[in-house]
């Protein structure tokens, strides 16, 4: 028994269709929507603004806060209870760590940059879509950044290495399934987030990430175009 063909007919290293745009939340200082298949993230940036209570401030540089939240009707199964959960808190942390390496917050001591990421619908890969949307929203807010951050999950379904797993693949009933969300800085090739659950050999893990690398470039291209397009700029 092998996983011979992907459920939705994609090639093994092909992502689902992606659309991205910036400036979708007019009240915010910067915002973006990143949609990959049926996973849709909307990110809005507010700040740099004052941070209270004061003990949370950093006198040397600005603080980046992430608030990940799924809309209650955005899960594949039952309603998701609104408000923070242990899962969303961990995601806030790993998304923050995924974005910090590209951001320069030195000019904003004692201030905070808040990034809110919400999901109207999800079909796996929400943290990666969230990172893509958040990095575009930060650029849209005019933050000083080295590059965007591009993220997608790679993984293994039964005997095949795949890119951008959807919910059906994560739930594949036969063989081992491994899900590895990865975020990279496309221009330097540095990895800013990697997590994994499931079972995979070390050779397969390295091969999976390397085979999937072109997806990061594809995503970065779409992100940069959406940012440049908003200001009438040219893509590089």
């Amino acid at each position: 028994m092998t996983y011979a063909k992907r459920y939705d007919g994609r090639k093994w290293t092909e992502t689902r269709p992606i659309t991205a745009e910036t400036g979708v939340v007019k009240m915010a200082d910067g915002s973006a929507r990143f949609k990959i298949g049926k996973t849709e993230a909307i990110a809005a940036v507010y700040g740099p603004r004052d941070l209270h209570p004061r003990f949370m401030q950093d006198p040397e540089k600005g603080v980046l806060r992430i608030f990940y939240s799924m809309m209650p009707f955005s899960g594949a199964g039952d309603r998701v209870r609104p408000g923070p959960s242990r899962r969303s808190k961990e995601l806030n942390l790993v998304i923050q760590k995924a974005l910090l390496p590209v951001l320069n917050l030195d000019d904003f001591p004692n201030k905070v940059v808040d990034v809110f990421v919400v999901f109207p619908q999800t079909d796996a890969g929400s943290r990666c879509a969230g990172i893509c949307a958040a990095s575009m929203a930060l650029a849209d807010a005019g933050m000083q950044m080295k590059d965007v951050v591009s993220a997608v999950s790679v993984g293994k379904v039964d005997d095949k290495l795949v890119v951008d797993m959807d919910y059906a693949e994560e739930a594949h009933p036969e063989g081992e399934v491994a899900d590895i969300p990865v975020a990279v800085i496309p221009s330097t090739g540095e990895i800013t987030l990697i997590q994994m659950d499931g079972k995979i050999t070390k050779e397969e893990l390295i091969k999976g990430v390397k085979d999937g690398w072109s997806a990061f470039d594809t995503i970065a291209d779409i992100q940069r175009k959406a940012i440049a397009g908003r200001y009438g700029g040219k893509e590089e």
Partner: protein
Amino acid sequence: MQIYASKEHIIAALQKGVRLDGRKPEEYRKITIETNVTATAEGSARVKFGDSEVIAGVKLSTGTPYPDTPDKGVLIVNAEMLPLSNPAFEPGPPSINAIETSRVIDRGIRESDTINVKDLCIREGELVWLVNVDICPINADGTMIDIGALAAIAALKGAKLPPLKDDKPDYKAEPTGDMLPVSSMPIPITVIKIGDVLVMDPTFEELSIADSRLTVTTLADGTICAMQKGGDGTLKIEDIEKMLELTTKKASELRKDLEKALK
């Protein structure tokens, strides 16, 4: 970044019959209503008044009825003023204004028998539908009560019942083709008073300087089913009379727009 105009500036413009975005006092922004905007909800809608935008989604589940109402299902309306949608909505417990907004939306929908909860009964005393409508603002630039309620109604109206498997909804299966039974469509309309001018479809900026506010919810036959006065200022009975006229007229227009969008 938002730059706010002074109250005096807005009032001076209003006295000449214009608003900062060029509208007349009673003029609405462009209204768009879309349904089926998310794949994971049983029903959903996106409503925009200009840049003010809300997504509402319906999630259906099953459960046992309350002992005192064995033949009735449950409708729960929840509006959360997401901090994503406006710089004034900070993370943490909702502010008093956010709570008021969600309660007024909830009251308009629940108390007007939008859903006859007896229609949600599957087996009396044993199994009923639980209907959750969640209202999520994306960009909160004023008139959140009206936009949120409209989105919730549109989402409910388009919700499809999933088939049951062991008395639990099977979300992965194709919907049964049966729609969630919606019996009435309450439409809330908000009018604010700035100085002595009545303003409709106010922006966040206009709302923040309003003297008083009245939200009137009406049914198809023109009956008023909910009302809420807000703001620090007062209203004379003549003001309320004028406001009722404006809101009921607009409600019937908006009802036609909604029906058209749901076809």
